[in-house]
Protein backbone atom coordinates (compact mmCIF):
# COMPACT_ATOMS: atom_id res chain seq x y z
CA UNK A 1 0.00 0.00 0.00
CA UNK A 2 1.22 3.51 -0.89
CA UNK A 3 0.78 6.78 0.89
CA UNK A 4 -2.74 8.12 0.97
CA UNK A 5 -1.68 11.45 2.43
CA UNK A 6 1.71 13.13 2.39
CA UNK A 7 2.19 16.20 4.53
CA UNK A 8 5.58 17.75 3.90
CA UNK A 9 6.94 20.68 5.89
CA UNK A 10 3.60 22.44 6.29
CA UNK A 11 3.52 25.81 8.01
CA UNK A 12 0.36 27.84 8.49
CA UNK A 13 0.01 31.25 10.09
CA UNK A 14 -3.13 33.16 11.01
CA UNK A 15 -1.87 36.73 11.10
CA UNK A 16 1.14 36.61 13.41
CA UNK A 17 -0.01 33.44 15.16
CA UNK A 18 1.71 30.26 13.98
CA UNK A 19 -0.87 27.45 13.89
CA UNK A 20 1.39 24.82 12.30
CA UNK A 21 5.17 24.84 12.09
CA UNK A 22 7.02 22.58 9.64
CA UNK A 23 4.65 19.66 10.12
CA UNK A 24 5.48 16.49 8.17
CA UNK A 25 3.87 13.06 8.30
CA UNK A 26 2.39 10.44 6.00
CA UNK A 27 -0.75 8.35 6.24
CA UNK A 28 -0.76 4.96 4.54
CA UNK A 29 -3.63 3.87 2.34
CA UNK A 30 -6.29 1.97 4.30
CA UNK A 31 -4.95 2.87 7.71
CA UNK A 32 -6.71 4.58 10.60
CA UNK A 33 -4.56 7.50 11.63
CA UNK A 34 -5.21 9.41 14.81
CA UNK A 35 -4.22 13.03 15.24
CA UNK A 36 -4.13 13.89 18.90
CA UNK A 37 -3.09 16.92 20.83
CA UNK A 38 -4.28 19.46 23.40
CA UNK A 39 -6.77 22.20 22.56
CA UNK A 40 -5.30 24.75 20.16
CA UNK A 41 -2.46 22.43 19.14
CA UNK A 42 -3.28 22.73 15.42
CA UNK A 43 -5.24 19.50 14.81
CA UNK A 44 -8.26 21.16 13.21
CA UNK A 45 -6.06 23.42 11.07
CA UNK A 46 -4.18 20.34 9.83
CA UNK A 47 -7.42 18.52 9.02
CA UNK A 48 -8.78 21.61 7.23
CA UNK A 49 -5.66 21.74 5.07
CA UNK A 50 -5.91 18.04 4.15
CA UNK A 51 -9.60 18.43 3.35
CA UNK A 52 -8.94 21.39 1.04
CA UNK A 53 -10.75 24.00 3.11
CA UNK A 54 -7.58 25.92 3.87
CA UNK A 55 -5.71 26.35 0.63
CA UNK A 56 -3.14 28.99 1.55
CA UNK A 57 -0.20 27.53 3.48
CA UNK A 58 3.50 26.85 3.11
CA UNK A 59 4.68 23.35 2.30
CA UNK A 60 3.22 20.48 0.30
CA UNK A 61 0.19 18.28 0.90
CA UNK A 62 -0.73 15.45 -1.44
CA UNK A 63 -3.85 13.32 -1.16
CA UNK A 64 -3.58 10.23 -3.36
CA UNK A 65 -1.02 12.09 -5.43
CA UNK A 66 -3.06 15.22 -6.04
CA UNK A 67 -3.63 18.46 -4.13
CA UNK A 68 -6.41 18.42 -1.52
CA UNK A 69 -8.47 20.80 -3.69
CA UNK A 70 -8.41 18.35 -6.60
CA UNK A 71 -9.12 15.39 -4.34
CA UNK A 72 -12.07 17.29 -2.87
CA UNK A 73 -13.48 18.04 -6.31
CA UNK A 74 -13.07 14.41 -7.36
CA UNK A 75 -15.12 13.36 -4.36
CA UNK A 76 -12.31 11.29 -2.83
CA UNK A 77 -12.49 13.13 0.49
CA UNK A 78 -15.21 13.16 3.08
CA UNK A 79 -14.78 15.60 5.93
CA UNK A 80 -16.65 15.90 9.20
CA UNK A 81 -15.82 19.15 11.02
CA UNK A 82 -15.70 19.19 14.79
CA UNK A 83 -18.60 21.57 15.36
CA UNK A 84 -20.62 20.72 12.25
CA UNK A 85 -24.39 20.73 12.29
CA UNK A 86 -27.00 19.31 9.90
CA UNK A 87 -29.51 21.50 8.05
CA UNK A 88 -32.06 21.80 10.81
CA UNK A 89 -35.14 22.43 8.67
CA UNK A 90 -34.43 19.29 6.64
CA UNK A 91 -35.17 15.79 7.89
CA UNK A 92 -32.31 13.42 8.67
CA UNK A 93 -32.95 11.60 5.40
CA UNK A 94 -33.10 14.83 3.40
CA UNK A 95 -29.73 15.82 4.87
CA UNK A 96 -28.24 12.51 3.77
CA UNK A 97 -29.88 12.71 0.36
CA UNK A 98 -28.61 16.25 -0.28
CA UNK A 99 -25.01 15.19 0.28
CA UNK A 100 -25.56 11.94 -1.62
CA UNK A 101 -26.75 13.91 -4.64
CA UNK A 102 -23.57 16.00 -4.52
CA UNK A 103 -21.28 12.95 -4.35
CA UNK A 104 -23.38 11.05 -6.92
CA UNK A 105 -23.26 14.17 -9.11
CA UNK A 106 -27.00 14.27 -9.54
CA UNK A 107 -27.51 10.55 -10.26
CA UNK A 108 -30.68 9.88 -8.26
CA UNK A 109 -30.37 6.09 -8.13
CA UNK A 110 -26.81 6.24 -6.83
CA UNK A 111 -27.79 9.01 -4.44
CA UNK A 112 -30.64 6.94 -3.01
CA UNK A 113 -28.31 3.96 -2.50
CA UNK A 114 -25.81 6.19 -0.77
CA UNK A 115 -28.47 7.82 1.40
CA UNK A 116 -29.87 4.42 2.37
CA UNK A 117 -26.38 3.40 3.42
CA UNK A 118 -26.32 6.56 5.51
CA UNK A 119 -29.63 5.63 7.11
CA UNK A 120 -28.11 2.30 8.19
CA UNK A 121 -24.99 3.93 9.60
CA UNK A 122 -26.94 6.64 11.44
CA UNK A 123 -29.26 3.99 12.91
CA UNK A 124 -31.83 6.55 13.97
CA UNK A 125 -34.88 4.37 13.23
CA UNK A 126 -38.08 6.25 12.40
CA UNK A 127 -36.48 9.48 13.62
CA UNK A 128 -34.55 9.67 10.35
CA UNK A 129 -37.68 11.28 8.83
CA UNK A 130 -37.96 13.92 11.57
CA UNK A 131 -36.45 17.34 11.18
CA UNK A 132 -32.80 17.38 12.20
CA UNK A 133 -33.46 20.47 14.34
CA UNK A 134 -35.45 18.22 16.68
CA UNK A 135 -32.53 15.79 17.20
CA UNK A 136 -30.45 15.58 20.34
CA UNK A 137 -26.77 16.45 20.10
CA UNK A 138 -25.83 12.77 19.93
CA UNK A 139 -28.38 12.04 17.20
CA UNK A 140 -27.09 14.96 15.14
CA UNK A 141 -23.57 13.65 15.48
CA UNK A 142 -24.62 10.17 14.32
CA UNK A 143 -26.35 11.70 11.34
CA UNK A 144 -23.26 13.72 10.45
CA UNK A 145 -20.98 10.73 10.83
CA UNK A 146 -23.29 8.73 8.60
CA UNK A 147 -23.16 11.57 6.10
CA UNK A 148 -19.37 11.47 6.13
CA UNK A 149 -19.08 7.69 5.81
CA UNK A 150 -21.97 6.78 3.47
CA UNK A 151 -20.13 8.05 0.38
CA UNK A 152 -17.46 5.34 0.69
CA UNK A 153 -14.73 7.97 0.48
CA UNK A 154 -11.11 7.02 -0.22
CA UNK A 155 -10.19 9.32 2.65
CA UNK A 156 -12.45 10.10 5.60
CA UNK A 157 -11.32 13.05 7.71
CA UNK A 158 -13.15 13.15 11.00
CA UNK A 159 -12.59 15.91 13.54
CA UNK A 160 -13.64 14.68 17.00
CA UNK A 161 -16.16 12.25 15.46
CA UNK A 162 -17.34 10.70 18.69
CA UNK A 163 -17.76 13.91 20.67
CA UNK A 164 -21.17 13.96 22.34
CA UNK A 165 -22.06 10.35 21.55
CA UNK A 166 -23.31 7.86 24.14
CA UNK A 167 -21.45 4.63 24.86
CA UNK A 168 -23.48 2.44 22.51
CA UNK A 169 -23.29 4.91 19.63
CA UNK A 170 -19.56 5.34 20.17
CA UNK A 171 -19.10 1.58 20.09
CA UNK A 172 -21.10 1.24 16.87
CA UNK A 173 -19.39 4.12 15.12
CA UNK A 174 -15.97 2.86 16.16
CA UNK A 175 -16.86 -0.54 14.70
CA UNK A 176 -18.08 1.14 11.52
CA UNK A 177 -14.87 3.13 11.16
CA UNK A 178 -12.85 -0.06 11.59
CA UNK A 179 -14.96 -1.95 9.06
CA UNK A 180 -14.83 0.69 6.33
CA UNK A 181 -11.09 0.84 6.79
CA UNK A 182 -10.59 -2.91 6.64
CA UNK A 183 -13.33 -3.95 4.20
CA UNK A 184 -13.40 -1.01 1.83
CA UNK A 185 -9.80 0.14 2.24
CA UNK A 186 -10.92 3.63 3.31
CA UNK A 187 -8.17 5.69 4.86
CA UNK A 188 -9.36 7.40 8.01
CA UNK A 189 -7.75 10.39 9.70
CA UNK A 190 -9.42 11.49 12.85
CA UNK A 191 -8.75 13.68 15.84
CA UNK A 192 -9.79 12.85 19.35
CA UNK A 193 -9.24 13.67 22.99
CA UNK A 194 -10.23 10.13 24.02
CA UNK A 195 -7.00 8.19 24.43
CA UNK A 196 -8.80 4.85 24.88
CA UNK A 197 -10.41 5.41 21.55
CA UNK A 198 -7.06 6.23 19.98
CA UNK A 199 -5.46 3.10 21.41
CA UNK A 200 -8.29 0.83 20.25
CA UNK A 201 -8.85 2.28 16.85
CA UNK A 202 -5.65 3.69 15.38
CA UNK A 203 -3.04 1.92 13.33
CA UNK A 204 -0.79 4.91 13.78
CA UNK A 205 -0.89 8.14 15.72
CA UNK A 206 0.51 11.64 15.24
CA UNK A 207 0.81 13.64 18.43
CA UNK A 208 0.70 17.37 17.79
CA UNK A 209 1.51 20.11 20.27
CA UNK A 210 1.81 23.86 19.70
CA UNK A 211 1.80 23.37 15.94
CA UNK A 212 4.52 20.70 15.85
CA UNK A 213 4.45 16.93 15.57
CA UNK A 214 6.03 15.70 18.80
CA UNK A 215 5.47 11.96 18.40
CA UNK A 216 4.62 9.73 15.45
CA UNK A 217 4.12 5.98 15.14
CA UNK A 218 1.88 3.12 16.25
CA UNK A 219 0.39 3.49 19.75
CA UNK A 220 2.78 0.73 20.95
CA UNK A 221 5.81 2.45 19.43
CA UNK A 222 4.92 5.79 21.04
CA UNK A 223 4.23 4.24 24.45
CA UNK A 224 7.46 2.26 24.31
CA UNK A 225 9.51 5.24 23.19
CA UNK A 226 8.13 7.42 25.98
CA UNK A 227 8.35 4.60 28.57
CA UNK A 228 4.69 4.68 29.54
CA UNK A 229 1.96 2.05 29.72
CA UNK A 230 -0.95 3.79 28.00
CA UNK A 231 -1.68 6.54 25.50
CA UNK A 232 -3.04 8.87 28.16
CA UNK A 233 0.33 8.93 29.88
CA UNK A 234 2.05 9.17 26.50
CA UNK A 235 -0.03 12.22 25.66
CA UNK A 236 0.73 13.97 28.94
CA UNK A 237 4.44 13.17 28.74
CA UNK A 238 4.79 14.16 25.07
CA UNK A 239 3.05 17.49 25.65
CA UNK A 240 5.34 18.35 28.56
CA UNK A 241 2.86 17.59 31.34
CA UNK A 242 3.58 15.90 34.65
CA UNK A 243 2.46 12.36 35.52
CA UNK A 244 2.68 13.05 39.27
Amino acid sequence: MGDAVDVINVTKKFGKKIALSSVSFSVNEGEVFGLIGPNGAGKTTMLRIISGIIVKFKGVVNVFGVTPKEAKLKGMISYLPEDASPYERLSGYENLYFYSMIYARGNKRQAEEMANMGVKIANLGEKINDRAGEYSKGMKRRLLLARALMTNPKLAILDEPMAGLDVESTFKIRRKMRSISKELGTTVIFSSHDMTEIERLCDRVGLIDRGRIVALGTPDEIMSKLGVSNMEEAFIKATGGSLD
Partner: protein
Amino acid sequence: MIRIIIDREILDVRRDKKLVVGSIILPLLILPLIGGIILTSQSVHQPVIEIVNQNVNNLPYVSLVSRYAETQGAQVFINNSPVYPDVKLVFPYSFYLNASRINGTVYVYIFSLISSTSQAYDIANNALYNLAVNISLTRIQELARMANTPVNAEIVRSPLYLVKGYIAPGGKPASQGQSELASIARVISFVMFPSVTPVVLFVVDSFAGERERRTLESLLATPVNASDLVFGKVISSTLLGVLASIAEVVGVSIFTFSVSALSGLPFYFNLEFLAFTVAALLLTVILTGAISVLLLMLMGGSVRNVQIISTIILILGMLASFSGLLFNLTSFAGLKTLFMFIPFVQIVAAMQMFAVGLTIQSFLYLGVVVAFSLAVLLFVIKIFNPERILLR
Protein backbone atom coordinates in the same frame (compact mmCIF):
# COMPACT_ATOMS: atom_id res chain seq x y z
CA MET B 1 -24.54 20.64 -9.08
CA ILE B 2 -26.21 24.07 -9.15
CA ARG B 3 -29.58 22.35 -9.30
CA ILE B 4 -28.77 20.31 -6.19
CA ILE B 5 -27.80 23.45 -4.27
CA ILE B 6 -30.94 25.27 -5.48
CA ASP B 7 -33.22 22.34 -4.56
CA ARG B 8 -31.80 22.26 -1.05
CA GLU B 9 -32.10 26.03 -0.62
CA ILE B 10 -35.70 26.00 -1.83
CA LEU B 11 -36.62 23.16 0.50
CA ASP B 12 -35.04 25.11 3.34
CA VAL B 13 -36.86 28.33 2.39
CA ARG B 14 -40.20 26.53 2.01
CA ARG B 15 -39.92 25.37 5.59
CA ASP B 16 -38.96 28.81 6.88
CA LYS B 17 -42.52 30.09 7.07
CA LYS B 18 -41.53 33.41 8.64
CA LEU B 19 -39.17 34.20 5.77
CA VAL B 20 -41.74 33.29 3.11
CA VAL B 21 -44.53 35.23 4.82
CA GLY B 22 -42.23 38.23 5.42
CA SER B 23 -41.06 38.19 1.80
CA ILE B 24 -44.65 38.29 0.55
CA ILE B 25 -46.41 40.38 3.19
CA LEU B 26 -44.01 43.34 3.26
CA PRO B 27 -44.02 44.12 -0.48
CA LEU B 28 -47.75 43.36 -0.65
CA LEU B 29 -48.68 45.79 2.09
CA ILE B 30 -46.08 48.55 2.03
CA LEU B 31 -47.65 50.71 -0.68
CA PRO B 32 -51.30 50.20 0.36
CA LEU B 33 -50.18 51.02 3.92
CA ILE B 34 -48.48 54.23 2.80
CA GLY B 35 -51.63 55.17 0.90
CA GLY B 36 -53.72 54.33 3.96
CA ILE B 37 -51.54 56.50 6.18
CA ILE B 38 -51.90 59.46 3.80
CA LEU B 39 -55.68 59.08 3.58
CA THR B 40 -56.07 58.58 7.32
CA SER B 41 -53.92 61.61 8.10
CA GLN B 42 -56.20 63.69 5.89
CA SER B 43 -59.49 62.39 7.17
CA VAL B 44 -58.64 62.14 10.85
CA HIS B 45 -57.21 65.64 11.16
CA GLN B 46 -59.33 68.31 9.50
CA PRO B 47 -57.31 71.55 9.15
CA VAL B 48 -58.59 74.29 11.46
CA ILE B 49 -58.43 77.97 10.45
CA GLU B 50 -59.39 80.80 12.79
CA ILE B 51 -60.19 84.22 11.36
CA VAL B 52 -59.88 87.13 13.75
CA ASN B 53 -61.92 89.99 12.36
CA GLN B 54 -61.30 93.41 13.98
CA ASN B 55 -63.93 95.35 12.07
CA VAL B 56 -67.51 94.36 11.25
CA ASN B 57 -67.14 96.11 7.87
CA ASN B 58 -64.57 93.51 6.87
CA LEU B 59 -67.23 90.80 6.93
CA PRO B 60 -67.85 90.47 3.16
CA TYR B 61 -64.12 89.78 2.66
CA VAL B 62 -63.93 87.50 5.67
CA SER B 63 -66.95 85.53 4.42
CA LEU B 64 -65.34 85.09 1.02
CA VAL B 65 -62.19 83.65 2.59
CA SER B 66 -64.17 81.50 5.02
CA ARG B 67 -66.41 79.99 2.31
CA TYR B 68 -63.44 79.20 0.07
CA ALA B 69 -61.52 77.53 2.91
CA GLU B 70 -64.53 75.41 3.87
CA THR B 71 -64.96 74.16 0.30
CA GLN B 72 -61.32 73.00 0.47
CA GLY B 73 -62.07 70.88 3.55
CA ALA B 74 -61.00 73.21 6.34
CA GLN B 75 -62.92 73.93 9.52
CA VAL B 76 -63.23 77.72 9.90
CA PHE B 77 -64.04 79.66 13.05
CA ILE B 78 -64.46 83.41 13.16
CA ASN B 79 -63.20 85.13 16.32
CA ASN B 80 -63.95 82.19 18.63
CA SER B 81 -62.09 78.98 17.79
CA PRO B 82 -62.85 76.26 20.39
CA VAL B 83 -59.62 74.44 19.46
CA TYR B 84 -56.15 75.75 18.84
CA PRO B 85 -56.12 76.52 15.09
CA ASP B 86 -53.49 75.33 12.60
CA VAL B 87 -53.60 78.75 10.98
CA LYS B 88 -54.83 82.09 12.35
CA LEU B 89 -55.74 84.92 9.94
CA VAL B 90 -56.09 88.44 11.31
CA PHE B 91 -58.10 91.00 9.31
CA PRO B 92 -57.12 94.35 10.87
CA TYR B 93 -59.49 97.23 11.58
CA SER B 94 -58.37 99.21 8.51
CA PHE B 95 -58.77 96.28 6.06
CA TYR B 96 -62.12 97.39 4.65
CA LEU B 97 -60.98 100.97 4.10
CA ASN B 98 -57.81 100.00 2.22
CA ALA B 99 -59.55 97.25 0.23
CA SER B 100 -62.24 99.62 -1.02
CA ARG B 101 -59.72 102.21 -2.21
CA ILE B 102 -58.61 101.86 -5.82
CA ASN B 103 -54.88 101.84 -4.95
CA GLY B 104 -54.88 100.93 -1.30
CA THR B 105 -52.63 98.17 0.06
CA VAL B 106 -54.42 95.74 2.34
CA TYR B 107 -52.78 93.77 5.09
CA VAL B 108 -53.76 90.36 6.43
CA TYR B 109 -51.70 88.73 9.16
CA ILE B 110 -51.23 84.98 8.94
CA PHE B 111 -49.90 82.88 11.82
CA SER B 112 -49.08 79.22 11.30
CA LEU B 113 -48.86 76.63 14.10
CA ILE B 114 -45.27 75.38 13.92
CA SER B 115 -46.12 71.69 14.49
CA SER B 116 -48.95 71.74 11.96
CA THR B 117 -48.90 70.10 8.51
CA SER B 118 -48.64 72.41 5.53
CA GLN B 119 -52.19 71.56 4.42
CA ALA B 120 -53.97 74.24 6.51
CA TYR B 121 -51.45 76.88 5.48
CA ASP B 122 -51.92 75.99 1.81
CA ILE B 123 -55.72 76.25 2.08
CA ALA B 124 -55.49 79.63 3.85
CA ASN B 125 -52.99 80.89 1.31
CA ASN B 126 -55.22 79.83 -1.60
CA ALA B 127 -58.25 81.45 0.04
CA LEU B 128 -56.33 84.72 0.40
CA TYR B 129 -55.22 84.50 -3.24
CA ASN B 130 -58.85 84.05 -4.21
CA LEU B 131 -59.69 87.17 -2.15
CA ALA B 132 -56.90 89.15 -3.83
CA VAL B 133 -58.27 88.17 -7.25
CA ASN B 134 -61.73 89.31 -6.22
CA ILE B 135 -60.46 92.69 -4.98
CA SER B 136 -58.45 93.10 -8.21
CA LEU B 137 -61.52 92.35 -10.35
CA THR B 138 -63.58 94.92 -8.45
CA ARG B 139 -60.86 97.52 -8.92
CA ILE B 140 -60.54 96.75 -12.66
CA GLN B 141 -64.28 97.14 -13.09
CA GLU B 142 -64.15 100.44 -11.20
CA LEU B 143 -61.27 101.73 -13.34
CA ALA B 144 -63.09 100.67 -16.54
CA ARG B 145 -66.19 102.50 -15.36
CA MET B 146 -64.16 105.65 -14.60
CA ALA B 147 -62.42 105.47 -17.99
CA ASN B 148 -65.70 104.68 -19.66
CA THR B 149 -64.02 101.82 -21.46
CA PRO B 150 -65.80 98.49 -21.66
CA VAL B 151 -63.35 95.70 -20.64
CA ASN B 152 -63.59 92.12 -19.54
CA ALA B 153 -62.17 92.30 -16.03
CA GLU B 154 -61.37 88.55 -16.00
CA ILE B 155 -59.18 88.86 -19.12
CA VAL B 156 -57.44 91.95 -17.81
CA ARG B 157 -56.75 90.16 -14.54
CA SER B 158 -55.66 86.86 -16.17
CA PRO B 159 -54.62 87.42 -19.79
CA LEU B 160 -52.72 84.12 -19.85
CA TYR B 161 -54.64 80.94 -20.65
CA LEU B 162 -52.73 77.74 -20.08
CA VAL B 163 -53.16 74.88 -22.52
CA LYS B 164 -51.65 71.85 -20.79
CA GLY B 165 -49.79 69.08 -22.61
CA TYR B 166 -47.02 66.57 -21.89
CA ILE B 167 -43.72 65.69 -23.51
CA ALA B 168 -41.40 62.78 -22.78
CA PRO B 169 -37.71 63.46 -21.96
CA GLY B 170 -36.81 62.51 -25.54
CA GLY B 171 -38.99 65.36 -26.84
CA LYS B 172 -41.87 63.21 -28.11
CA PRO B 173 -45.43 64.12 -27.15
CA ALA B 174 -46.70 62.17 -24.14
CA SER B 175 -50.06 61.47 -22.60
CA GLN B 176 -51.41 62.28 -19.16
CA GLY B 177 -51.30 58.53 -18.57
CA GLN B 178 -47.54 58.49 -19.09
CA SER B 179 -47.20 61.41 -16.71
CA GLU B 180 -49.20 59.54 -14.07
CA LEU B 181 -47.17 56.39 -14.71
CA ALA B 182 -43.96 58.36 -14.19
CA SER B 183 -45.28 59.50 -10.79
CA ILE B 184 -46.21 55.92 -9.91
CA ALA B 185 -42.72 54.78 -10.99
CA ARG B 186 -41.22 57.25 -8.53
CA VAL B 187 -43.35 55.94 -5.70
CA ILE B 188 -42.53 52.32 -6.59
CA SER B 189 -38.82 53.05 -6.84
CA PHE B 190 -39.01 54.67 -3.40
CA VAL B 191 -40.55 51.61 -1.76
CA MET B 192 -38.89 49.00 -3.98
CA PHE B 193 -35.83 48.42 -1.84
CA PRO B 194 -37.52 48.54 1.59
CA SER B 195 -40.15 46.09 0.40
CA VAL B 196 -37.64 43.44 -0.67
CA THR B 197 -35.64 43.78 2.57
CA PRO B 198 -36.45 40.22 3.76
CA VAL B 199 -35.14 38.82 0.48
CA VAL B 200 -32.09 41.10 0.60
CA LEU B 201 -31.29 39.94 4.13
CA PHE B 202 -31.80 36.33 3.02
CA VAL B 203 -29.24 36.83 0.24
CA VAL B 204 -26.70 38.33 2.63
CA ASP B 205 -27.40 35.54 5.09
CA SER B 206 -27.10 32.73 2.55
CA PHE B 207 -23.38 32.24 3.07
CA ALA B 208 -22.88 33.81 6.47
CA GLY B 209 -25.94 32.06 7.89
CA GLU B 210 -24.55 28.69 6.84
CA ARG B 211 -21.35 29.54 8.67
CA GLU B 212 -23.29 30.52 11.78
CA ARG B 213 -25.46 27.38 11.60
CA ARG B 214 -22.28 25.33 11.12
CA THR B 215 -23.29 23.73 7.86
CA LEU B 216 -20.89 25.64 5.61
CA GLU B 217 -17.62 23.88 6.43
CA SER B 218 -19.02 20.44 5.55
CA LEU B 219 -20.40 21.83 2.30
CA LEU B 220 -17.11 23.49 1.37
CA ALA B 221 -15.33 20.14 1.69
CA THR B 222 -17.62 18.43 -0.85
CA PRO B 223 -17.10 18.27 -4.64
CA VAL B 224 -19.30 21.37 -5.00
CA ASN B 225 -17.15 24.04 -6.61
CA ALA B 226 -17.23 27.80 -6.09
CA SER B 227 -19.37 28.62 -9.13
CA ASP B 228 -21.99 25.98 -8.22
CA LEU B 229 -22.16 27.36 -4.72
CA VAL B 230 -22.24 31.07 -5.60
CA PHE B 231 -24.68 30.78 -8.52
CA GLY B 232 -26.80 28.18 -6.71
CA LYS B 233 -27.32 30.52 -3.79
CA VAL B 234 -27.91 33.63 -5.91
CA ILE B 235 -30.39 31.81 -8.15
CA SER B 236 -32.34 30.39 -5.21
CA SER B 237 -32.46 33.88 -3.66
CA THR B 238 -33.78 35.18 -6.95
CA LEU B 239 -36.57 32.60 -6.85
CA LEU B 240 -37.57 33.98 -3.46
CA GLY B 241 -37.34 37.41 -5.09
CA VAL B 242 -39.93 36.27 -7.67
CA LEU B 243 -42.41 35.72 -4.84
CA ALA B 244 -41.62 39.13 -3.37
CA SER B 245 -41.90 40.91 -6.71
CA ILE B 246 -45.27 39.30 -7.51
CA ALA B 247 -46.47 40.43 -4.09
CA GLU B 248 -45.11 43.92 -4.76
CA VAL B 249 -46.91 44.09 -8.09
CA VAL B 250 -50.17 43.12 -6.39
CA GLY B 251 -49.51 45.75 -3.69
CA VAL B 252 -48.74 48.43 -6.27
CA SER B 253 -51.87 47.55 -8.20
CA ILE B 254 -54.02 47.82 -5.07
CA PHE B 255 -52.39 51.17 -4.27
CA THR B 256 -52.80 52.57 -7.77
CA PHE B 257 -56.35 51.33 -8.12
CA SER B 258 -57.29 52.85 -4.75
CA VAL B 259 -55.72 56.20 -5.64
CA SER B 260 -57.55 56.09 -8.97
CA ALA B 261 -60.88 55.23 -7.31
CA LEU B 262 -60.55 57.92 -4.64
CA SER B 263 -59.26 60.69 -6.88
CA GLY B 264 -61.47 59.94 -9.85
CA LEU B 265 -58.43 59.82 -12.14
CA PRO B 266 -58.18 57.00 -14.70
CA PHE B 267 -56.23 53.83 -13.80
CA TYR B 268 -52.99 54.12 -15.79
CA PHE B 269 -51.22 50.87 -14.94
CA ASN B 270 -50.38 48.50 -17.77
CA LEU B 271 -49.02 44.98 -18.07
CA GLU B 272 -45.72 46.07 -19.63
CA PHE B 273 -44.99 48.28 -16.66
CA LEU B 274 -45.91 45.49 -14.23
CA ALA B 275 -43.54 43.10 -16.03
CA PHE B 276 -40.79 45.71 -15.96
CA THR B 277 -41.37 46.21 -12.22
CA VAL B 278 -40.93 42.47 -11.66
CA ALA B 279 -37.71 42.48 -13.70
CA ALA B 280 -36.40 45.48 -11.76
CA LEU B 281 -37.12 43.81 -8.43
CA LEU B 282 -35.43 40.58 -9.49
CA LEU B 283 -32.38 42.54 -10.60
CA THR B 284 -32.35 44.25 -7.21
CA VAL B 285 -32.09 40.81 -5.61
CA ILE B 286 -29.39 39.62 -8.03
CA LEU B 287 -27.33 42.79 -7.58
CA THR B 288 -27.69 42.44 -3.81
CA GLY B 289 -26.44 38.86 -4.09
CA ALA B 290 -23.45 39.93 -6.17
CA ILE B 291 -22.47 42.82 -3.88
CA SER B 292 -22.98 40.82 -0.70
CA VAL B 293 -20.84 37.84 -1.80
CA LEU B 294 -18.15 40.23 -3.01
CA LEU B 295 -18.09 42.05 0.34
CA LEU B 296 -18.24 38.71 2.14
CA MET B 297 -15.23 37.50 0.19
CA LEU B 298 -13.27 40.70 0.81
CA MET B 299 -14.21 41.18 4.46
CA GLY B 300 -14.86 37.64 5.73
CA GLY B 301 -18.00 36.00 7.10
CA SER B 302 -17.94 36.76 10.82
CA VAL B 303 -21.19 37.94 12.47
CA ARG B 304 -19.83 41.48 12.79
CA ASN B 305 -18.77 41.57 9.13
CA VAL B 306 -22.16 40.27 8.03
CA GLN B 307 -23.89 43.02 10.04
CA ILE B 308 -21.61 45.60 8.40
CA ILE B 309 -22.34 44.14 4.95
CA SER B 310 -26.11 44.16 5.57
CA THR B 311 -25.91 47.78 6.72
CA ILE B 312 -23.85 48.83 3.68
CA ILE B 313 -26.37 47.22 1.33
CA LEU B 314 -29.38 48.71 3.11
CA ILE B 315 -27.77 52.18 3.01
CA LEU B 316 -27.06 51.81 -0.72
CA GLY B 317 -30.69 50.76 -1.21
CA MET B 318 -31.94 53.76 0.79
CA LEU B 319 -29.79 56.12 -1.30
CA ALA B 320 -31.31 54.63 -4.44
CA SER B 321 -34.84 54.93 -2.98
CA PHE B 322 -34.43 58.60 -2.09
CA SER B 323 -32.68 59.47 -5.35
CA GLY B 324 -35.67 57.92 -7.16
CA LEU B 325 -38.11 59.99 -5.13
CA LEU B 326 -36.26 63.29 -5.20
CA PHE B 327 -34.57 63.34 -8.61
CA ASN B 328 -35.64 63.03 -12.16
CA LEU B 329 -33.30 60.22 -13.18
CA THR B 330 -34.37 60.18 -16.81
CA SER B 331 -31.74 62.77 -17.71
CA PHE B 332 -28.36 63.37 -16.21
CA ALA B 333 -25.83 66.13 -16.37
CA GLY B 334 -22.89 67.36 -14.32
CA LEU B 335 -22.69 66.22 -10.71
CA LYS B 336 -25.93 64.25 -10.97
CA THR B 337 -24.10 61.78 -13.23
CA LEU B 338 -22.12 60.65 -10.16
CA PHE B 339 -25.33 59.23 -8.69
CA MET B 340 -25.35 56.64 -11.42
CA PHE B 341 -22.29 55.01 -9.84
CA ILE B 342 -24.26 54.20 -6.68
CA PRO B 343 -25.48 50.59 -6.95
CA PHE B 344 -29.27 50.21 -7.31
CA VAL B 345 -29.71 53.81 -8.62
CA GLN B 346 -29.44 52.43 -12.17
CA ILE B 347 -32.43 50.15 -11.53
CA VAL B 348 -34.48 53.06 -10.18
CA ALA B 349 -33.46 55.17 -13.20
CA ALA B 350 -34.43 52.35 -15.56
CA MET B 351 -37.93 52.22 -14.00
CA GLN B 352 -38.40 55.96 -14.39
CA MET B 353 -37.17 55.78 -17.99
CA PHE B 354 -39.50 52.92 -18.85
CA ALA B 355 -42.45 54.80 -17.38
CA VAL B 356 -41.80 57.87 -19.55
CA GLY B 357 -41.33 55.84 -22.71
CA LEU B 358 -37.51 55.70 -22.90
CA THR B 359 -37.71 51.95 -23.45
CA ILE B 360 -34.31 51.39 -25.10
CA GLN B 361 -32.47 53.42 -22.48
CA SER B 362 -34.30 51.62 -19.66
CA PHE B 363 -33.33 48.18 -21.00
CA LEU B 364 -29.79 49.46 -21.51
CA TYR B 365 -29.60 50.41 -17.84
CA LEU B 366 -30.97 47.03 -16.77
CA GLY B 367 -28.46 45.39 -19.12
CA VAL B 368 -25.62 47.27 -17.45
CA VAL B 369 -26.82 46.05 -14.04
CA VAL B 370 -27.01 42.45 -15.31
CA ALA B 371 -23.51 42.68 -16.81
CA PHE B 372 -22.11 44.28 -13.65
CA SER B 373 -23.71 41.64 -11.41
CA LEU B 374 -22.41 38.81 -13.56
CA ALA B 375 -18.92 40.33 -13.66
CA VAL B 376 -18.91 40.65 -9.87
CA LEU B 377 -20.12 37.05 -9.41
CA LEU B 378 -17.47 35.73 -11.81
CA PHE B 379 -14.81 37.76 -9.99
CA VAL B 380 -15.98 36.32 -6.67
CA ILE B 381 -15.73 32.79 -8.09
CA LYS B 382 -12.21 33.55 -9.29
CA ILE B 383 -11.04 34.79 -5.89
CA PHE B 384 -13.22 32.31 -3.93
CA ASN B 385 -11.37 31.20 -0.82
CA PRO B 386 -13.28 29.00 1.67
CA GLU B 387 -10.88 29.98 4.45
CA ARG B 388 -11.82 33.63 4.06
CA ILE B 389 -15.56 32.99 4.48
CA LEU B 390 -15.13 30.38 7.16
CA LEU B 391 -12.39 31.70 9.38
CA ARG B 392 -12.23 35.50 8.96
